[in-house]
Structure formats: C-alpha cells, structure tokens
C-alpha cells in the first residue's frame, strides 16, 4: 500500500477539509437563508430556496458533528 503521508497526517488533512468546507458553507447558507426570508412575496421558488438552504445547512452541521464524534466520542 502506498502511503503519501503518515496516517495521522492523512486524517488531519481530511479533518481540515471537512471543518473548512462545512464552516464556510454553513455561513453561506445562513446568509442565503436570511436574504430569502427577507423577501415578502411568497412564491414556490422562495419556498424551494428556503428548503434548499435548510438542507444545505443541515448537511454542514452533520459534517461538523461527525468531526466532533471522531475526536471526542
């Protein structure tokens, strides 16, 4: 088996990618959600954008919970 880096470094890189992506994307989804909620005209497209942002945020929270589980539980 080819090891490019030691296993601990490999897992560290994976953690940095997960935390970096999840945290930044969570902020993006939060901003999107706030912007969409400010729209006063209630259309099906607005509902879809809200649902999409909630699902996006949930995915990112799940990603961060997994990291917590990996290191502390």
């Amino acid at each position: 088996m080819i090891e490019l880096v030691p296993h601990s470094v490999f897992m560290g890189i994976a953690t940095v990618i997960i935390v970096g992506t999840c945290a930044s994307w969570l902020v993006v989804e939060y901003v999107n959600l706030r912007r969409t909620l400010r729209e006063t005209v209630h259309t099906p497209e607005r509902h879809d954008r809200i649902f999409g942002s909630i699902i996006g945020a949930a995915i990112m929270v799940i990603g961060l919970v997994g990291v917590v589980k990996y290191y502390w539980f």
Partner: protein
Amino acid sequence: MEPGVVNPANAVTLARLLTIFPLWYFIANDERQLAFVVIVVGGLMDLVDGWVAKAFHCQTAFGEVFDAIADGLLYGSALVVLAVYGWAPRGPVVAIMGLGVVNAVFRYIYQRRAGRTMNYLSLAMERFTGNLAFLIGFAITGYEVDFYFPVCASLMAVIVIHDAKRMLVDPVTR
C-alpha cells in the same frame, strides 16, 4: 450563437468522468490515500467546470446534462464500489441508490406533467449531490462512516418526499 458541444467546460467534465477508472482501481487495491487524492481532484473539477463554462461563455443545455450524467456515473459508481469492498455500509448505500432511482422516476413524471424539457430545479437535491463527494471521501478515509451514511440516507429520504410533493402534487410553475 450557442457554443458547440466541444468546448473547455465539457472537456473538464470529460476529464472528471475519466477519474472513475483510477478511483475504482485504487479502491479495489486498498490504496486509500491515492483514492482520496482522486476524489478530491474530481470534486475540484466539479467546481472548476462551472467556472470555466462562465469564463469562456460556453454554458449549454448539453453541458448541463453532461455534468449531471458525470455526477451520477462518478458518484453513483464510486458508492457502489465502496459498498462492495466494505468501505461504506451497504444498507445506507442501497437506500441512497434506491432513493436516487425513485427521484429520477418522479422527475420523469414531472417532465411529462409539465410538458417541457426543462425539469424541476431541486436546490436541496443539488446540495445533497454535492454532499455525495463528501460521503465518498468519508468512506475512503474511514471517517465516521457508521454515523454519516445512515444520517445522510435519512436526509435524502426527507428531500425525496419534499420534492415528490413539489413535482407530483403542487401545481406546475411556469
């Protein structure tokens, strides 16, 4: 004038599609780190093809379909191979693949209902498809797979139920 099929964005998508074979090979030969590099490169190319399409003004209907097909083939086949080699839990992978098929059937019905080639734009499912690259990365690294896979399969079920209502019950929006 609409750009042709042969353009920089589709070239990037094709290159991404070709990462399927090294990915399968590395998974089959227990090369976790190399498989991880391939899936990260594939994920980055997924981002890059959208930017290239905008930068070179070559956004086409074919490109959108080709991109979706590349996503389906790359992520779908990677999930199956990972489950076959025991890197990902088989139950949730079967559930995710099954829900994908159900969703595709609903999208077909919606298209017939709407009477047009344009399909329902599910922003939630788009996000979940992006998340599949993450799930594959988790399985390759062995990162909390017993947590991520069942939770994400449940989340996908919620999205499919929501989208089913939008596509099959709600009035078609123009």
